């Protein structure tokens, strides 16, 4: 849908993004991960058209218009504070060419979707942070844009608010929306995103469909009742791919087929088996490996 072709962005001597070539696929929820200053907001602003690349090209493919319609929830929750919530949303609806007749319904629907109907007649400056986050999402949804840009949608929300926000995004994913969101919360990305991009120092370190990434490196973990320091040499003699970490034995690749043998060694050594678990790589592991 959106293609980045060797895109770089410089702010004077600072390189915010460098030689980015990738595609934001249609119908996917793309999660942008990376440490602070990695270039996530710059990436989102480029897609929003607020800034232009210093070099390279960003194009919209398979789209009838020159650029898809965009709904944008910025990271900073600043809105025109003197306006009433419904007034603000009506204005956004007007800018999205929503007809006068449908405008009221569109505003009510978007407020209902983010559970903000009760605040429809409140001034924006009186809203709490959580309500502002929801207002941010509500305004981005108006006009049914082709692409939703959510810059840290759950930032600053309490656990209940985060849960709510993730549920909204899951509903949008189910409705087939294309979403580009940045986040610092790995569990949020694991839960709602279908595609993953990890940025650091303006470069793409990793990109993959989330489901594919999480099927990588299957392994078996055997947990025993106490630290395995004494048994470590014996276990590693069986296969070099056996990793001992504290009271856990991790079997990777061919070592997985040796789990019965390992279990019997552990039992013979007098360890009690607490848990045997089949695992996949976690997003936290992917992230820390990529970033380090």
């Amino acid at each position, binding site marked *: 849908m959106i293609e980045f072709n060797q895109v770089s962005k410089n702010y004077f001597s600072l390189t915010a993004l460098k030689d980015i070539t990738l595609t934001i696929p249609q119908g996917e929820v793309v999660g942008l991960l990376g440490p602070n200053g990695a270039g996530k907001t710059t990436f989102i602003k480029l897609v929003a058209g607020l*800034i232009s690349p210093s070099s390279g090209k960003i194009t919209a493919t398979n789209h009838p218009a020159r650029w898809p319609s965009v709904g944008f929830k910025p990271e900073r929750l600043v809105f*025109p504070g003197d306006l009433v919530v419904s007034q603000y949303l009506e204005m956004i609806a007007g800018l999205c060419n929503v007809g006068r007749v449908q405008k009221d319904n569109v505003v009510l629907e978007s407020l209902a979707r983010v559970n903000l109907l009760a605040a429809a007649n409140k001034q924006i400056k009186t809203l709490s942070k959580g309500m502002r986050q929801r207002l941010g999402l509500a305004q981005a949804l108006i006009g049914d844009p082709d692409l939703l840009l959510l810059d840290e949608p759950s930032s600053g929300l309490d656990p209940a608010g985060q849960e709510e926000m993730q549920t909204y995004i899951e509903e949008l994913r189910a409705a087939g929306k294309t979403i580009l969101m940045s986040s610092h919360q790995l569990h949020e990305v694991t839960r709602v995103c279908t595609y993953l991009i990890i940025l650091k120092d303006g470069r793409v370190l990793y990109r993959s469909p989330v489901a594919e990434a999480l099927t990588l490196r299957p392994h078996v973990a055997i947990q025993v009742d106490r630290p395995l320091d004494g048994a470590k040499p014996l276990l590693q003699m069986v296969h070099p791919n056996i990793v001992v970490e504290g009271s856990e034995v991790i079997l990777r690749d061919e070592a997985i087929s040796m789990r019965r043998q390992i279990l019997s060694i552990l039992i013979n050594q007098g360890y009690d088996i607490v848990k045997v678990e089949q695992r996949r790589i976690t997003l936290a592991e992917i992230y820390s490996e990529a970033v380090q």
Partner: protein
Amino acid sequence: MIRRILILTGYFSKAVFFSLTGLILLILSLIYWAIFFPPGQGTPDVENYIILVGALGAGVTFMATLAVSSKAGRMENYPMLVRLPSRVEYLVAVLLSALLLGTILQFLVAGLALIRGPELTMARVLTIPPLWGSINLLAAVLAIHATDLVTAGWSRVILFGTLAVALILNSAAGSPDIWFSDRFNDLSNLFSRVNLLWFSDLAGNAAAWAFESPLTGLANVAGIIFWPFRAMTDAVFAGGFTPSQALAPAVLILYGAILFLVAATLFTSKDLDFLE
């Protein structure tokens, strides 16, 4: 497109008019009225009325443009801006809001100034809209170049620098050789009085050069650029436009259009880094 522009115009106008800045603009306009049209003093001339209220319109429109641009350059407007198919719509809305505010305040003062003011004939009233309208438009477009919203790199320095040079050359129009030569001679005399003879000689040489230089041509060009202002002032004092003077407001609108085109080009190609 028109609907989107009108929505944004309404939003910017309301936001600025009902803010502290709006109140300050209103107070400044009333102070201007009290100074130049004191109600107790009686009838000023029609010519003065047209020129003074026109000048107020230009000034207040300039300030209103700065205020609206400042409002438009805030981060809270990102979600609105990304909804527009073209950034030019945003800039047009800023310009229209500023013109609307400037015109409202100008009309307020124009109305107040008519209390015990001049009696305007219909023929005179009909000459006013092109005068005030074209000057307000030019003031708004010039002001927009002075704001962070539009400026890119050295654009405002170049624009206002060029304008300043053109104004200096214009003030010398007619006999620029003598005008510049006299200025350098004044400088030479000043240096010789404080015993800086080397600088005095330098200024003396510059005076001789100015007398022979091609400044006449440049000054004449500047004179042509500022012709619409002279033509409009002459028309006001003559009580009506001659056929050639009638073109002056149109020329000012053309200047405004060209400057707006430059502003739109700068605005559409610049990175928008709005303030919170």
